[in-house]
């Protein structure tokens, strides 16, 4: 008798599974696929969605907020940011000469944004970042500045040890305490809490 009970139970299990799949088959309204490139215009990403970093411009002056302090460079675990700075004769403030973003190394962890004290960096949700070669992923973020032309030939040379006087070098050497000097600073969570 046992075998009949088992057979019947097995048959019931099989049929219920078939019922389930047929149920979905018969109801095309249940389809959840989104046709991605076609729905590009209606695609809505959450506001916090982060895919890469970008520099923020001051709306009034039209200049980047970045003062090339190098905090983001130090915060990055993967050396994704290279930064050279110069003193703007106009404002007597430091400005980035070239803010080079190595997207091919970026973990999109957001630590640089967190480290930035001057509201100069943000994560954008621009996720279509595919490229043909890793070189295409290296980008100068302050490219609107007239001096930061899109010439990538000198990128990477600044990190060479002999000429990093003015480069905020990503401190891969073990003891970074000397030149970080940021230990006393504290991190506050960004104020995006629900109101």
């Amino acid at each position: 008798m046992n075998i009949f009970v088992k057979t019947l139970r097995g048959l019931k299990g099989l049929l219920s599974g078939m019922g389930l799949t047929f149920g979905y088959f018969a109801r095309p309204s249940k389809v959840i696929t989104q046709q991605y490139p076609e729905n590009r215009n209606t695609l809505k990403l959450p506001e916090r969605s982060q895919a890469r970093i970008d520099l923020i411009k001051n709306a009034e002056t039209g200049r980047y907020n970045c003062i090339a302090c190098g905090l983001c460079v130090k915060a990055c675990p993967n050396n994704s940011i290279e930064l050279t700075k110069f003193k703007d004769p106009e404002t007597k403030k430091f400005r980035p000469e070239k803010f080079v973003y190595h997207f091919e190394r970026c973990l999109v962890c957001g630590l640089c944004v967190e480290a930035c004290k001057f509201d100069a960096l943000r994560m954008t949700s621009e996720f279509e970042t595919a490229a043909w070669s890793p070189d295409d992923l290296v980008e100068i973020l302050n490219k609107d500045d007239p001096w930061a032309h899109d010439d990538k030939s000198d990128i990477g040379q600044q990190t060479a040890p002999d000429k990093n006087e003015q480069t905020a070098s990503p401190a891969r050497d073990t003891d970074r305490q000397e030149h970080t000097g940021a230990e006393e600073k504290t991190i506050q969570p960004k104020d995006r809490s629900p109101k």
Partner: protein
Amino acid sequence: MSNIPADTSIEPDFEDYYVNMGPQHPSTHGVLRLIVKLAGETVLGVTPHIGFVHRGIEKMAEALTAQQFFPLTSRLDYLSAHMNNWAWAMAIEKAAGIEVPERAEYIRIIMSELSRISSHQLWWGVFGMDLGAFTPFLYGFRDRERVNDIFEKTCGVRLTMNYICAGGVREDVDRDFEKDVREFTDYFEPMIDEYDRLLSGNIIIQERTKGVGVLDPETAKQYGCTGPTLRAGGVDYDVRKNRPYGLYPRMDFKTAVATEGDSWARYVVRLEEMRQSLKIIRQALDQIPAEGPVRAKTPMNIKIPDGHYLSRVEAARGEFALYLVGNGKILPQRVKLRSPGFSNLSALPETVKGWRIADLVTIMSTFDLVMPDIDR
């Protein structure tokens, strides 16, 4: 020859027949290479070869500050990224004596349980696919997508979130968070029944898993298996219960335990764990303070005082433990990761002996291996 599985007494006269399963094989779920010794279809022995995605994360930790190491912990077992982050955060908090705000603790619990669910959803789908049914894979992904949406809304990323950090969580949750999570729990509970209808009730699944690949509790303990793999054998060990961390003592939930120790038990335990996780999430949502800080004030570069610090969490695959040695600098002296997958994998050769190739796939699937977790 070290790479040849140990001889077994099953069929001594059979000519040795070795096949390479992997590194590129659909059911090793990553770059795992198994050298399988066969007699016909019967597996006489298995030697796992690992290390194809070894990144030296433990060593990298010695060159990174506490903050900088968080993104890397997400990339260990990418399916329980929150839990791994939590383990590192806990170690740092222990070391630096940081107090975590209550709201953050609740958020951590919710996030962890959500990622446990999402991990098990993926596992469920892949399990179905390993056994030859393709449809569960997409159903599992369909439901996992909802969890990922919740993650993306709050953390900005869908997989390697890097959300839990030393002293709390990086930022407060999204304003729709509570609504979304409640919606998800209500949506997903009937979906587990649907999983039952499609796979659990299926006689083929039962025939293929019941009694297959029994890992008895003693062997499991000896190999250091944890998580569902261990609990399926009747060992009631769950870090959340036995060595509670965070606010888990406030939660009322049962550890999912089965007794048989076979593939079916591992399957059932994971399904039950999803239900328990839903329960925990609901409780946490009820208890969470509506307002309050989510992150304690921490220095940007945390100095790790001299000493040894251990933290352990229950990741989706078992106990993830993290051992941190500090020497008063901002860079850790040494970090040791104890990943659940590695220990579980080491019990695999013992379990599959005498079963067939198809069972090897089943057993491997129910062990739920994630290669980056094993290779680190």
